């Protein structure tokens, strides 16, 4: 018998496959039984109502996409009154992604979403912090530690910290998140990027710049997930460019305990259930009985530690 379940802190997930924030909503239930997923992660919400960025909010780049959705949000009341009750019908744990412009606002929201029906809180600390010139909390170890401490104090629910690939201090930020009280790390969010329409000379996104996601992001995000798994003791949830079962295995082997699938769902809405089935078939074929047989099984023994923590490529 093959057991696909994985442990993320105190939470047991029936399998390691879940959607990435912002690429999933209850609308996916029109395409598949979302109860088959390891967890259900909401789009990031903010405390108040927000409109999001100007359109166009999305554009295509070679084999991948950019988005500048921003965080349109219906606010915390809507979340508590409508979203949470909606997900009661499912037993896959509900993970709410939240964000705030200031540490205090963030912590307040964290407390406000700590209601029955919510299994974990994913804190999107990759969003701009207006107290630090708009730099995301997760750009620096110090601001990461600071916000995580306040968030930790605000809730008893498991806290997943979502990191950004835009920092040059991945390992230090990961350690700061752990020190600040994170129960898991989600690695990672989109990478800041740009595209210009040569005909009109206008940036292709209404917001000028946006986040790169999809296959192009994978080698970068995988590297970060690997660095984080080496740097901390809490579970790492890999995210970035996953579209096949092989991609999932790459993250698990690199040290991730679970993964999030984002953009791939836009291309193939049923990608996650196909991956879950293929993962099970793979384990049967290779005689693995549990996920920990795969997780962190990377054969990097030959390499020096200094290499593992390098922060640049020559």
């Amino acid at each position: 018998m093959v057991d696909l379940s994985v442990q993320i802190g105190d939470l047991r997930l029936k399998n390691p496959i879940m959607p990435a924030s912002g690429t999933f909503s209850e609308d996916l239930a029109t395409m598949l039984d979302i109860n088959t997923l390891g967890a259900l992660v909401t789009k990031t919400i903010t405390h108040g109502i927000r409109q999001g960025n100007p359109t166009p909010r999305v554009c295509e780049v070679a084999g991948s996409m950019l988005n500048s959705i921003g965080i349109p949000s219906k606010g915390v009341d809507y979340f508590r009154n409508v979203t949470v009750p909606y997900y009661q019908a499912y037993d896959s744990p509900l993970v709410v992604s939240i964000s705030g412009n200031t540490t205090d606002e963030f912590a307040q929201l964290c407390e406000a979403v700590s209601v029955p029906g919510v299994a974990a809180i994913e804190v999107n600390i990759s969003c701009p912090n207006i107290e630090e010139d708009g730099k995301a909390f997760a750009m620096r170890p110090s601001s990461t530690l600071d916000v995580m401490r306040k968030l930790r104090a605000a809730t008893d629910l498991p806290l997943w910290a979502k990191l950004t690939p835009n920092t040059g201090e991945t390992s230090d930020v990961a350690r700061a998140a752990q020190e600040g009280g994170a129960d898991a790390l989600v690695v990672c969010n989109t990478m800041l990027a740009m595209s210009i329409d040569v005909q009109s000379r206008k940036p292709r996104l209404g917001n000028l710049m946006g986040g790169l996601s999809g296959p192009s992001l994978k080698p970068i995000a995988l590297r970060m997930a690997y660095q984080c798994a080496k740097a901390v003791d809490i579970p790492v949830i890999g995210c970035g460019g996953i579209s096949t079962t092989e991609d999932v295995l790459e993250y698990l082997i690199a040290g991730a305990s679970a993964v999030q699938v984002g953009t791939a769902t836009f291309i193939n809405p049923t990608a996650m259930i196909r991956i879950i089935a293929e993962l099970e078939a793979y384990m049967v074929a290779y005689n693995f009985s549990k996920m920990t047989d795969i997780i962190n099984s990377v054969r990097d023994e030959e390499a020096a530690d200094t290499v593992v923590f390098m922060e640049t490529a020559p």
Partner: protein
Amino acid sequence: MTVAVVDVTPGIVPANEQVFETECQVISNSPVNNDYRLLVLAAPAEILNCTPGQFFHLQCPVREGLQPYLRRPMSIYGYFPEKGELQFLYKIAGTGTAALATLAPGEPLNVVGPLGQGFDIRDDWQNLLLLARGVGLATLAPLALEAHKRGKTLTAICSARSPEMLMSIDYFRDLGANIITVTDSEETSGLENLEKLIEGLIATNGIDAFYTCGSNRLLKLLQTLGARHNISGQIALEQQMACGLGMCQCCVRSFQSPTGIVHKRVCKEGPVFDLQEAMGW
């Protein structure tokens, strides 16, 4: 100008409770005229439970030098559960549609749908006016068929650059529609002429509802006429899409609402919207 967020509750009834990701087979894919091509797919009946105005999200094929990544939204031109056919009328606009044009009979095409909210034909509407140009005809064709089935009286104003570019005229005529063609080359497609034409139609037979799509110019004209004569109307709109399912919120447009301007998702609350709520762009 204050812009509020989408005021749509998850409680809204989706047009289809179930949406399918299906591999269809190409039956044919050939040019209709210089600009447009008709793609005919063999499709299982389960995905042909469509409403006129809905769309599919197509995974265009990957070719040397043409490597589309995201899906491309395409209005349903025809859906025929009896013979298991799904049709799209499209124009080559860029990478995705150029790749689509390379599909040969027998090749597979992965489609997601049917998606979005289609047109509404209220029982108390009898005289319908369709106003379309270019690819807009693709979107209005199944509406014409449905209207015909329901015994409505149909007038279709078809606009194009030149008479040769007019499409689907026979299709509309076979449905018993009263056809009026206007073209740029004959200088009959201007707003003034259109306004006169439609005012004439309203005066003679009366019109209960307008249906249109795409053009900002036509939207404004019909909004004015609709307001003037208190005629309902619907418009199908376009916007860049990623998921097509309502999840990513990239496809929003602004709409007038009693509470101010709101954002709605073209893929989910649309692509068909109330004519008066729609805003120009």
